[in-house]
């Protein structure tokens, strides 16, 4: 069916509203001048400057480190949760499954405040020296990212033939061999997709990170926020463009792995 003209206009307007700001942001990261609204010629200056900004690089590194840690833990925890929910029947199973959705729907601000209270009470936020100080943030990210992994893995398990597990046992494999040789290899695409999802969620999280960051530690989104309160410089545009590129690349990978494989 071909789109009628009014529909085309609506669609065009929607795309414009959605993507024009991002396009402008990316375009002005290549602007030669300081202004963020007047084009003054093409240059990579702001990328060079961003790359030389120690604060920015440190924040970027922190974000990547936190995302990596959160991704590993979320993937393990989410996969284990999904398998447990699928494989075993136990009291409170449906309650547990329902609880999985909570971090997905609860406003991030509430989760942030809740985690802040927990971390403050346990002294996690103040006591730790530098690299260890990233751990509480990573754990906070796990709290909201692992349910996404569990949901993705569970979706794949729904189409999983339980006879494969029985065939494995029938052929002499115990629980462990069946897990590592049959179940996990077949879940790998879902685990990779879930992991990439967790990574991107963690990488650009602002609200929860803002609440759980101790003094002296910063992540990229939090740093950008503090920088734009003074002025928006093309340096931020450049750094943001890099972040967009990383996120998009990972999202594309996640999409590719999410597609059912043979």
């Amino acid at each position, binding site marked *: 069916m071909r789109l009628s003209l009014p529909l085309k206009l609506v669609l065009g307007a929607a795309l414009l509203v959605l993507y024009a700001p991002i396009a402008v942001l990316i375009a002005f990261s290549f602007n030669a001048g300081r202004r963020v609204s007047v084009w003054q010629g093409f240059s990579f200056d702001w990328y060079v400057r961003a790359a030389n900004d120690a604060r920015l690089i440190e924040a970027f590194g922190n974000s990547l480190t936190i995302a990596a840690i959160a991704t590993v833990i979320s993937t393990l925890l989410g996969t284990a949760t999904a398998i447990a929910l699928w494989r075993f029947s136990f009291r409170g199973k449906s309650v547990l499954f329902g609880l999985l959705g909570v971090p997905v729907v609860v406003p991030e601000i509430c989760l942030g405040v809740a985690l802040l209270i927990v971390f403050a009470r346990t002294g996690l936020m103040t006591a730790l020296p530098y690299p260890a100080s990233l751990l509480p943030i990573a754990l906070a990210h796990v709290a909201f990212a692992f349910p996404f992994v569990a949901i993705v893995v569970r979706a794949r398990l729904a189409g999983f*033939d339980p*006879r*494969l597990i*029985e*065939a*494995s*046992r*029938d*052929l*002499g*494999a*115990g629980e462990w*061999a069946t897990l590592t*040789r*049959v179940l996990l*290899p*077949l879940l790998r695409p879902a685990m990779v997709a879930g992991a990439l999802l967790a990574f991107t969620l963690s990488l650009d999280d602002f609200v929860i990170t803002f609440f759980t960051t101790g003094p002296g530690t910063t992540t990229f989104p939090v740093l950008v926020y503090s920088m734009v309160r003074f002025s928006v410089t093309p340096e931020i545009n450049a750094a943001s463009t890099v972040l967009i590129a990383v996120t998009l690349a990972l999202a594309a990978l996640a999409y590719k792995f999410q597609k059912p494989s*043979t």
Partner: protein
Amino acid sequence: MTLLALDRVTKRFGTTTAVDDLTLDIRPGEFFALLGPSGCGKTTAMRMIAGFETPDAGRVLLDGQDVAGTPPEQRPVNLVFQSYAVFPHLSVARNVAYGLEVTNTPKAEIAPRVAEALALVKLDQRGDAMPSQLSGGQQQRVALARALVKRPKLLLLDEPLSALDRKLRAEMQSELKRLQRDVGIAFLLVTHDQDEAMSMADRIAVMQAGKLEQVGTPADLYARPATRFVAGFFGEMNFLDDRRAIRPERVRLSAGGSSRVTEAVFLGDRWSYVIDGTLRATASTDCTFAVGDAVTTVWTDADLLRL
């Protein structure tokens, strides 16, 4: 001599009794068929033998040993699933090697045994293929090779031929039979197809609604059915009353009399008639009647089956 015995085994799922007080024995090296209509409990019986279901009552004995506490991976039986359940992420050869690898069979032993098993099911050229590249019939051969390579004492086959088309089915029937003779392993074939059971099995157990109806050789079951159900299950049967029945080929016809031919169908090697609207009779091609002809039906006591 008994390889496997089911001793008064019962299995319930909620309110349905899937298997009801079933007693059976299978001998070493025999081709045994468990036959019955869909839903009569065949798969459940087989799953109890493999260890995937626990009987609510009764015992499963392998070589005289109660296997109640033995998990599936430690029972010397293997199962060919109705859905094949071939591992989609492993090549044909790796599928077949799986059962040897997970039980720490020496590497030097695995390769020749896999090759031998693949040759047995005529897949020796396809070892590197992935299951998704194979037809249903070929996937089933993988499942078969994967189980045979374990050299079980008893091989369980759940409706192995039901998913195949007719031509392939006939081929696989004789091939399974040949395979069973070659390897000398006892086969337990589950099927709802009486012709299949008849043509393949040394002995057949007929089940209905979870209960055993009769066990015997195909000839026994045909000539001396113990129950009305068994009598009606194999071939055609005329039930004269509650206690007597007669096969169509035992009904003799002679010309003239008070009965009428109401249907006549030529089958090539014989004629099939319906007399007076109910009684079926078959006759050789030199005994020809037309619809409406007057006939007399004749049989002796020896022709009758008593149920």
